[in-house]
């Protein structure tokens, strides 16, 4: 496994334009991108339908879903990221182990192969897995709902971005994160717009996202699809050539000033 890819969708409402976000998430999963979803509860228009949708998107995207209050956002994003990495590593290792083991050793096809190992072997495998969790490359996209009702929660979002930066910085593996928002500002033709190109310098970025215009519809589905397209392109194109950390700083700043309204 060369890299773990995930999208975290943060929303406080129900999608109301375009492709179903559940279908979009299923597409992401097919491309090897895990979709996690956080629904924010306070003063939102999430409702029962939105809450159900949050769960459905995550299930289609092979990820986790949580409904939380704004002040829990930092912890939730942090936890989800860690879980996603740990689960992906575990699945990969389990599949490799299953290939090695004979059917005799596995009394059922569904058995976790880890459980078949003796305590000594198990200890070694887990040690390697824990090391991988720390060192594997991580590529994530944060997809933020910026409809009008998100205004009151925006400071929590910015704090969560700052906090995520702290956690990612501490990892030993390469990290890159890009940030998108939806709906895009009115000048934009697409469903979502990129606020931040892939970077590993997140901790100081939070302040740059104040003063965004927040209104419009909630095109969650089309937004997910665009992020997926972007991540694939990036991976096939420039990404493989000059790897992670290759974003020149001036480029990022220039881009940001264009996008901030």
């Amino acid at each position, binding site marked *: 496994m060369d890299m773990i890819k995930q999208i975290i969708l943060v929303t406080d409402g129900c999608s109301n334009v375009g492709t179903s976000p559940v279908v979009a998430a299923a597409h992401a999963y097919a491309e090897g991108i895990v979709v996690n979803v956080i629904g924010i509860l306070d003063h939102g228009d999430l409702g029962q339908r939105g809450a159900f949708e949050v769960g459905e998107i995550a*299930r289609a995207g092979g990820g986790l879903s949580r409904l939380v209050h704004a*002040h829990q956002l930092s912890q939730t994003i942090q936890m989800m990221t860690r879980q996603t990495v740990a689960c992906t590593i575990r699945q990969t290792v389990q599949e490799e182990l299953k290939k090695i083991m004979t059917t005799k050793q596995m009394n059922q096809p569904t058995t976790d192969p880890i459980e078949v190992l003796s305590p000594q072997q198990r200890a070694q495998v887990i040690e390697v897995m824990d090391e991988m969790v720390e060192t594997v490359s991580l590529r994530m996209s944060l997809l933020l709902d910026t409809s009008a009702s998100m205004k009151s929660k925006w400071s929590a979002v910015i704090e969560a971005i700052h906090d995520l930066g702290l956690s990612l910085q501490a990892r030993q593996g390469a990290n890159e994160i890009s940030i998108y928002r939806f709906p895009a500002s009115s000048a934009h033709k697409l469903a979502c717009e990129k606020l931040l190109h892939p970077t590993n310098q997140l901790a100081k970025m939070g302040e740059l996202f104040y003063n965004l215009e927040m209104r419009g519809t909630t095109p969650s589905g089309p937004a997910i699809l665009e992020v997926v397209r972007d991540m694939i392109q990036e991976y096939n194109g420039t990404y493989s050539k000059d790897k992670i950390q290759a974003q020149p700083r001036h480029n990022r700043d220039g881009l940001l000033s264009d996008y901030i309204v």
Partner: protein
Amino acid sequence: MTISYNTQLFPSNEEPLPSKTELLPGMIIRGRWNKSTYLIERKLGEGANGHVYLAVGDEDGKQIQYALKVGYSASDLQSEINLMKKLAPIVNRRPFFIDADDYMDGEDVCSFYVMQYVQGVSISEFIEKKGTEWLYLTGYYLLSRLSAIHQRGFAFCDVKPSNVVVSAYGQVELIDYGGASPFGKSVRQFTELYDRGYWNCGSRSADSGYDLFAFCIVFMQLAGAILPGKGEVEVLLPHNRSKTELYEAIKGCPACHIVAPVLHGMIDGTYTDSAKVLEEWKNRMHTIGIVPKQDIKIPWLGGLAVVSVLILTISIYVTFN
């Protein structure tokens, strides 16, 4: 990290679920590798990745009470077992970590490990019940436990009152080693309030300073310092979480004064060696005071002194005349 979610509609497919059946008092489990048997007495509690039971086992022919943890998932628990094996201390001349094994529940493999049963309460309960007289001593024991882990190149990381158990005479044991991380790696498990990053006081990488910072917040809480924004439903704004706010809290807390320079050092991250901190803590306890200084204010005491001087003067006068 401990997070409690108020609402979670869908336990998602990737999450380890507590699917395995709970053990009941009177049940006997037998390890399939090491063949030891344990009689379950009662459930002690529930951790992030498993249930903990009080169990009786056999050690050199003697019946001994243990704490036995059954994990929801073998992988998660093994991670903790690996850490326990590396880091668990010797308690009362016996290893704290006893055994790790699986038992079979029908077709299901259930992974568990066994550790010494520490009879005690959480450090916050202890101080609340027994008073702040115990503050510096329990603090000292906690520091020495952390320091022992640091000597092995690990940070405990999730230092918080509920992970610190104190027995009757102030002896401290750490429980839940699941968050421990090697120096230089990212902190695997933390609780916001005790997290150095959350307070804008440094990184979220494991080093001895990370634990010392968490220790400082725990100590301040126990000593009755008013942490900024404490008790608010909404968490603190980032600008309220800074060194200066913590310094202020120390200043306003009399029980912190004796160790204030050490606490400041913990906040500033000036310590790289926790053995030195331990030494300094001990020195301050023995040279300045082992219990918090209390300003005793008895208003009539001054009056009493005047009266006694007066009586003395009169008695001297009377005697010499």
